[in-house]
């Protein structure tokens, strides 16, 4: 079994830097841990710890009003917390670039993750988001580039789902 840390979070960070992302909202998450750590360590990125994911949607709107690009990192369960706030993005055509680590879909031990995880894609589509999905490490960087273009170029919500297969299953017994 490969135990070296995955490189895709670093590729995502590189994409953030190329895109000029200046604010990154996040709720602590194991799948995003490496990316959050990189953002927190970067002098040009303001990493904003949120109490709930919908705060990150409003943060991104404010950032764009002020001329900065933001990103939102969350887990699939966080999507449910965002739905009403996503209407802000649609009503005003604000860009939202969000990366969602998926739970409840591949070798999931915790059945409580399934109800929200299983509806992330249709829910985001109902919110008129463009939904992209990365299942292998090689897909992450090109999808991130496309997501950046679409979110900020077209001023719309773009969600990149990071499959549980990509992240790996949560280890419950250590």
């Amino acid at each position, binding site marked *: 079994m490969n135990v070296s840390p995955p490189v895709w979070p670093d590729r995502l960070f590189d994409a953030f830097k190329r895109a000029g992302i200046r604010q990154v909202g996040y709720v602590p998450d194991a799948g995003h841990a490496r990316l959050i750590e990189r953002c927190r360590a970067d002098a040009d990125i303001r990493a*904003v710890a949120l109490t709930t994911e*919908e*705060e990150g949607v*409003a*943060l*991104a709107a*404010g950032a*764009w*009003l002020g001329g900065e690009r933001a990103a939102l990192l969350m887990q699939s369960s966080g999507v449910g917390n965002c739905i009403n706030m996503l209407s802000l993005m649609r*009503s005003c055509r604000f860009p939202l670039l969000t990366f969602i680590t998926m739970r409840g879909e591949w070798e999931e031990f915790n059945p409580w993750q399934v109800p929200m995880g299983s509806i992330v894609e249709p829910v985001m589509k109902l919110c008129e988001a463009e939904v992209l999905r990365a299942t292998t490490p090689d897909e992450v960087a090109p999808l991130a580039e496309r997501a950046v273009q679409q979110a900020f170029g077209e001023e719309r919500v773009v969600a990149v789902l990071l499959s549980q297969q990509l992240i790996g299953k949560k280890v419950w017994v250590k």
Partner: protein
Amino acid sequence: MTGTLDRRAAMATLMQGRDDDLLVVPGLGSTTWDLAAAGDNDRNFYLWGAMGGAAMIGLGLALAQPKKRVAVITGDGEMLMGMGALATIGLQRPANLAVIVFDNGVYGETGGQPSHTGAGVDLVAVARCCGFSTCLEVADLADLADLAARLPRLNGLLFARVAIGPEEPPRVLPERDGAVLKRRFRAALGLAP
């Protein structure tokens, strides 16, 4: 605890003589009507929805525009819905952000049902616990004048609760196309629409 300050007069006092470096985000409902009544301005980002989001929009804006001053002026119900934002803002502590709550202890827009603040929840104490450096109770005209004097020289994270009376003046409706509001706001800051 209901207050006695007139909400329209309070907003007018806070906006009196505002300069181009003040950016204002009101909450949906009454504070948006109050701000519109005080005079339209491209640097107002009126909210017609997104309840609970005003303070976080203010944070994103304050971080993006550190040389401008940002005032979020919202109602108690709107603030209560996004109370976690006070904790999030308290961690970031932008020196150019003021969060001002017009507190009448009721949900005026939906018929005057009592809010949590009307039953004793103390938003000033919440803000203090969350790390806001200046936390003010604005109960009378002298307090209001003090708050208005602080806005042009904001130099630290500020929270204020303005104890307004229960009156609901006639609505003054600003532009309601969100994309238009966004574009004119960005244009006022010299950003591409």
